[in-house]
Each structure stands twice: as structure tokens, then as C-alpha cells.
């Protein structure tokens, strides 16, 4: 998927973090330093507006929620393009998994990461329910893993023979 991000592939981790903060377990204290409300906020938004549904790909919801960040429009557009082009309709698979998760009471926090798409059979979105993706947190998540591969470097021109 590096082909979509081009030189903005350095921001992939940032985009994953944007998702992971918005969908994180809601902090237990009402600390005003915490800008976002975590999974409780997203649950409330889903309850009111049905943001994730079988009729809307995840990329559209991600754009609505500002998950492409605010500082670099080109990188944001490339990220959304990457999501739109996930193999096997992965964009919609993610939306369906999130919609199903939010039908549960309570829904699980969600965690997004990437895996190596170059491994045979791994060029697909992998969704794991009730997963523990972070060994340092005793917290179950819905994990969504996106297939990624490094972008190919442009072939170097052969030196002309003298």
C-alpha cells in the first residue's frame, strides 16, 4: 500500500494513532487535558448518526471523523485513498466490523495496526474480535490490521556506456 502513500508513508503511524486515540478505552477520570472522549464518544456518535454502516465504507466515516488529520492535506488524501483501495473490499469490511462492534453492549475499544502484506496470504484486512494487541494493557479490543508493503523505489537509470 506504499504505492498510495508515496513519500507520505512516514505518516502511516500517525494516522493509525489518530484512530487509536479516538477509539481508545475512555479514560476513567474526567481530565480536561484529554481532548477526545475515547470509545464512549464514538459510541455516542454511532448511536446518534449511525456513522458506521453496511452502506458506507470506512474511508467515508474516517473523513467525517477527521481521522486524516488536519495538518497535511495531501497526506490525508493519500491515506483515504489507501483505505478506499484496501484489497477484497477491505474498506467496507472495516465498516461492517465496526458497525457490528457498536451493536454490542458495551462495544470494545478498537485498535488499528498494520501487517506485512508481502507474506503469502496476508494481503488482506485482518479483523480480530476480543483481541489483546497491546501486551502492556489488560484490555480487550477489536483489532483491525491493514496490509502494508514498502513502496518500490523507482528503478535507477542505467549508466550510459562510453
Amino acid at each position: 500500500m506504499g504505492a498510495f502513500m508515496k513519500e507520505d508513508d512516514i505518516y502511516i503511524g500517525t494516522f493509525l494513532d489518530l484512530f487509536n486515540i479516538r477509539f481508545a478505552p475512555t479514560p476513567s477520570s474526567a481530565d480536561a487535558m484529554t481532548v477526545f472522549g475515547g470509545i464512549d464518544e464514538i459510541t455516542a456518535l454511532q448511536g446518534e448518526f449511525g456513522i458506521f454502516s453496511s452502506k458506507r465504507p470506512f474511508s467515508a466515516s474516517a473523513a467525517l471523523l477527521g481521522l486524516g488529520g488536519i495538518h497535511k492535506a495531501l497526506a490525508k488524501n493519500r491515506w483515504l485513498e489507501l483505505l478506499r483501495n484496501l484489497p477484497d473490499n477491505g474498506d467496507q469490511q472495516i465498516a461492517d466490523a465496526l458497525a457490528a462492534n457498536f451493536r454490542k453492549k458495551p462495544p470494545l475499544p478498537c485498535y488499528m495496526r498494520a501487517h506485512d502484506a508481502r507474506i503469502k496470504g496476508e494481503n488482506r484486512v485482518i479483523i480480530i474480535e476480543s483481541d489483546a494487541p497491546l501486551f502492556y494493557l489488560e484490555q480487550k479490543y477489536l483489532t483491525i490490521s491493514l496490509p502494508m508493503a514498502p513502496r518500490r523505489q523507482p528503478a535507477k537509470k542505467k549508466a550510459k556506456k562510453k
Partner: protein
Amino acid sequence: MDLTAVHTGISDYYTAKIRKFGATPLGVDWTCLPTQELRFVQLLKVCDFTSPLSLNDLGCGYGALLSYLDRRHAGCPIDYVGVDISQAMLRRARRLWRNRRNASFIHGHASPRPADYSIASGIFNVQLGQPPDVWERFIATTLDQLHRTSRRGFSVNFMRAPTAGTPERKGLYSAEPEQWARYCAAQFGATTEMLDGYGLREFTLIVRRRPVS
């Protein structure tokens, strides 16, 4: 107390926002459209949409409430006036809604016309560098104006005060839910209702006039 410096500070802050981000939720300092509209959902609970109504939108920004009303309450005729302290914000709003009927925008810090209802979303959050007593005088004055210009009721929202021991976020104002509810009940003889638990770290205060017996 002269609030000119407060109003100027607010105007400068939001003018910079709209210039940077345009007519988007970020341009009025909200994270995204859904969180912006979730606040509208709460604030508009003051309104009875079963019959035509007039509505003042204080701190209207670029008029985002209009698109929400058009989607969710299209069946109810609403006479809308948006009021904002930032001229740059109003220019965006007027351009965006120039063809919409029953909507107008006015520059100022209070509505010049009475309406059935008034709402104000997020206008008390960004305290900037104002001392707490000055900012709370601004809030009290604004609540007084909202009450004076609302025939049936008004609603506002506040960030929830952090729990004891956690620091406040610099430049932001937060409150205990009871504080301003008590103020409105005592000052206006109004009934108050508090809405919270809607996923955002804030609460919405709904203030209704008591029916004249």
C-alpha cells in the same frame, strides 16, 4: 464591567480559526462534524419542533446549525437568526447561506431580536487569557442576554470541570454542572435541566421560562 476586551479577544481567536480552516468544524474549533452536530442534538432539546418557531443562534460561526436543521427538522418552519462576534465568520456564513430563506446573520455579542428559543454552542469554553472573574462575568452577562431574548427558553453547553487533583487545561473554561443551573434558576426564576452522559466531556444546560399562570 466593561467586556470589550473579552469580546475583542473572542473575535480575534475565531477570526484566526475561520481564516485557517475555512467553513468547517475545525474553523469553529470543533474536532469534526459528528461531534459538532452531537452538540446541536443536545442543545435543540430545548425546542418544540411540532409548530413553527424562531431561533437565535448565538456564536453561530459559519451557520453549521442550518445544515443540521435542514436535515433533521426539515418539516418545521424555522425563522433563524445567527449572531456572531467575528466579521470574518459572518462573511463566510452569508456567502454559504445567501440563497437560504428565513435565515439572516447579524454581527454582535447578543441578538437584537427576541425569538422563541436561543442556543449557544461552545461559546464559553475558550477563556483565552481572561481572569476567571472576568470570564464568569462574561458568562453571566451572556446568560442574562439569552434569557431576555428568548420567549420560551435557551440552551448552552459547558466543558465539565476536571475531577479533583487533575489539572485544568490552560485557556479553557470548565464548570460544575450545578453552578450555572443555580444561577439561571435564581436570576430568571426559570426551570433548568442538565443533559450529560452523551459521550462528550461536557454538559448542556437547558433553561426554560416558567409558564405565566
